[in-house]
């Protein structure tokens, strides 16, 4: 029981550290810092996983959106373009 309580306590601390670390991620990335140099990134399994997850998500979205054909604009778009060209508004 004591062991379990200790683990939960550690987990809480861990979570607090993660919350703190993640709240500064954008700012640190913007400042050009290498997040991997932070001690927290070396000991925490979740924050590095979060960054990997974001990269994976971005790559997956790009792949998914490029696999299917792009949507087509309404035919009216071309008719409007033609009209404007003919009226010399282009």
């Amino acid at each position, binding site marked *: 029981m004591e062991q379990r309580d200790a683990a939960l306590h550690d987990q809480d601390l861990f979570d607090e550290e993660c919350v703190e670390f993640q709240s500064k991620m*954008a700012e640190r*990335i913007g400042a050009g810092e290498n997040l991997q140099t932070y001690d927290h990134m070396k000991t925490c399994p*979740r924050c590095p996983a979060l960054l990997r997850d974001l990269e994976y998500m971005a790559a997956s*979205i790009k792949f998914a959106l490029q696999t299917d054909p792009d949507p087509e604009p309404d035919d009216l778009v071309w008719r409007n373009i033609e009209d404007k*060209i003919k009226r010399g508004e282009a």
Partner: protein
Amino acid sequence: MPLSKTSESGKSTTASPGAPGALSTRASIQDPSPSGLESDGLAASLQPAAPTAPAPPLTPDAIILAQAQAGDHTAFAQLYSVHKRRVYSLCLRMLGNVAEAEDLTQESFLQLHRKIATFRGDSAFSTWLHRLTINVVLMHLRRKGLNLISLDEALDPSPEYGPARSFGAPDLRLTGSIDRMTLEKAVENLPAGYRLIFVLHDIEGYEHNEIATLLDCSIGNSKSQLHKARMKLREALRAPADEEVAK
């Protein structure tokens, strides 16, 4: 769409020789004047011309482009037909709104019509048109009052992606089973500034320094905004997945 077949005769390549914005591929068109005749006198001029490497033939796309540059409306219609999906899709992703995307697709092609003669072939035509479209969209957003210089929280005053909800384990189910429509919707629903950065970097493949130039912001700003955009998107994609799990 009133499209008609365009001849591949290449006549338009000679229709506007030396015109401003002449297609770079025109450089490969053989000069009709015989080479070597300008050299030393008659004897030299009687020598057969030195063999020159045959100019590579113009591709059908380059011919259509050259014809459109020379003012051929049918060729311009063909350019529209070839590039409309790409341009519309880019507008749609950057704007997240069908009506605006159609308006700006129209505006992009009207601008293309005005500027096509200035295309010099320094980059691929599709790249040039892509950049023109992005500029049209950015100008539109600036006119609407979107401050692209300060992309930070001003665009999203309550970024409640909150770390407390984000520090969980990697969530690889996020994208594997999510269809394109859901992904498109999630991107569309991002706040405007986040969406711009995400689309330009993660979908269109622009580097942070290029985005910084396009949006007139710092490279650091672009990087931090991208991180926030991804976090926001992750949250949006997790929500339906979480609902599924709850069922």
